[in-house]
């Protein structure tokens, strides 16, 4: 009886392009650079190809979600902390930047970096108490803060209360606005990809796999987790800070749960643990959700169907699937 099985092997060019030999030929260089250039160039020309102001605004929102999704993917799949704190990061970063701008008169391009760093520090401090614990506590606490924040703002009538902070300066013009967020996404995307392969990233991945072994190697896992939360909340706060300057308004809707949930959905669709995948997921999900706006409340139904279909039929995610097709060939072989 003849039996056959499908074999997967790396393409020859992938093997050749793995090492330093990649520098020896244009073909191999091109093989490495092509997918990255497609993403970079694609992102950079996006503002030009969008038909209207409305869709250009959508691109900025995509980028803000992409920052959140990268931060979620980094925390969940390289540090092992499932964060539902997207709304917390956006809210803290957004309110800080709005205060910097309206009360102290900093221009947006100065207020945003300050809000990013200060907001990341605040978020890390808020989340610090639950970093010592393993398991579901981090997710619960990070979900609870944004819920609590809205109520605190409402009840104490601070930070503009239910009306929010009005009169926040916008970016000098919409080209600067869009290229600023696009460049930030690319910067943090490739930065995070580099980071997870550096020494710090290795320690973080080890914390995810077995934190007791890391502790036994003489490292403080709480410290390393705090560093990771700082990095990832910096990405989120940056997104929030940009968002208030795009909308020229900062309000309680910054703490909306959309900011926590949509990045997770994007990560599922794009491919968990690839960092690029979540960005692709956002590029698909956010415009789709805009297109579905015509259907009114039915929007959520379509949205859920898409998500469920993805999880059932392609739970590996677009990016994992794409990488495999790009790097490997399949063929039938006789056993």
């Amino acid at each position, binding site marked *: 009886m003849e*039996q056959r*099985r499908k*074999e*997967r092997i790396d393409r020859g060019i992938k093997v050749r392009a793995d090492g330093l030999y990649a520098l020896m030929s244009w073909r191999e260089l091109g093989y490495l650079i092509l997918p990255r250039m497609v993403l970079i160039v694609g992102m950079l020309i996006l503002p030009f190809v969008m038909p209207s102001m409305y869709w250009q605004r959508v691109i900025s929102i995509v980028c803000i979600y992409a920052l959140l999704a990268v931060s979620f993917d980094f925390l969940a799949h390289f540090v092992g902390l499932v964060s539902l704190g997207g709304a917390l990061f956006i809210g803290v970063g957004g309110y800080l930047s709005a205060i910097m701008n309206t009360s102290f008169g900093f221009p947006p391009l100065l207020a945003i970096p300050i809000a990013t760093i200060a907001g990341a520090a605040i978020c890390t401090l808020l989340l610090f108490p639950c970093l010592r614990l393993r398991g579901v506590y981090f997710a619960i606490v990070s979900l609870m803060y944004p819920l609590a924040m809205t109520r605190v703002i409402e009840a104490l009538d601070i930070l503009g209360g239910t009306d929010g902070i009005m009169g926040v300066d916008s970016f000098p013009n919409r080209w600067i606005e869009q290229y600023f967020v696009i460049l930030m996404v690319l910067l943090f995307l490739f930065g995070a990809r580099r980071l997870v392969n550096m020494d710090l990233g290795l320690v973080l991945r080890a914390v995810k796999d077995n934190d007791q072994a890391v502790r036994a190697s003489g490292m403080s896992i709480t410290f390393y987790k705090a560093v990771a939360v700082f990095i990832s909340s910096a990405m989120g706060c940056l997104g929030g800070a940009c968002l208030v300057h795009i909308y020229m308004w900062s309000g309680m809707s910054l703490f909306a749960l959309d900011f926590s949930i949509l990045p997770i959905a994007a990560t599922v669709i794009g491919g968990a643990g690839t960092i690029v995948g979540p960005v692709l997921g956002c590029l698909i999900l956010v415009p789709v959700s805009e297109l579905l706006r015509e259907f009114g409340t039915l929007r959520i139904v379509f949205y859920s169907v898409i998500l469920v279909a993805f999880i059932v039929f392609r*739970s*590996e995610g677009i990016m994992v*699937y794409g990488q495999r097709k790009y790097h490997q060939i399949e063929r039938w072989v006789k*056993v």
Partner: protein
Amino acid sequence: MLEATDLMVFYENMLALNNVSIKCEDKQIVGVFGANSAGKSTLMYTVSGIMEDIRKKEEMAGGERITVLGQIRFLGRDITDLKPSKRAREGIILCPERRRIFPECSVMENLRIGAYLASPSQAKDTLEYVFNVYPALEKLKKRVGGFLSGGEQQMLAIGRALMAQPKLLLLDEPLLGLSPLIQSIMVRSTKEIRNEKGISIIVTEQYARPVLPIVDYAFILENGAAVLEGPRDEVLNNPDVRSAYFGVS
């Protein structure tokens, strides 16, 4: 009773089992011996059907592609395509490597979970029997599984497998990390279970010395292939086995 022919398992392109055929007759103890990476656990997973489960999960996550070829017949029926839960209903129960007890359940709860497939009267009888074979467990009834010692956990794992009313019990490395004293208790109890309950047992082990004396038939795996098989005495007296697995030159 169990007849697996020409089993081949590929993890992606790595051949984990190469044309392995094993057989277990009624009320026999069959030993499978081999070093690390010889394919013992893969064999156990394939026979118990857990491999199907692993294959599906890997496929969903876009990981390694696992290919399983070959046929498995159990009690005259082809079970090659049966799901692991169906195989358990047929009577193939795996007691997995590193025990895999439920660490947050008490001893009693662990055993009750194992009895899911048994009728109440069967469960009651088997429970008595388990405490009879492993008296140590009876004193620890209320203790949480995670706080048991390695030996007690192994006893519990075998007890849990027994509660599922096996016809064929697969013991994957039951002596892993146990002291010589506990090892001899485990080996003795394995034989007792076969004699008293009439259950066929397939047991894998790296180190042949403690287990080989109680088996009826033995297979030796090396790098995924069955290099030697035969009744106990034949294997015991084979000079290669003596030097490789007993340290006798």
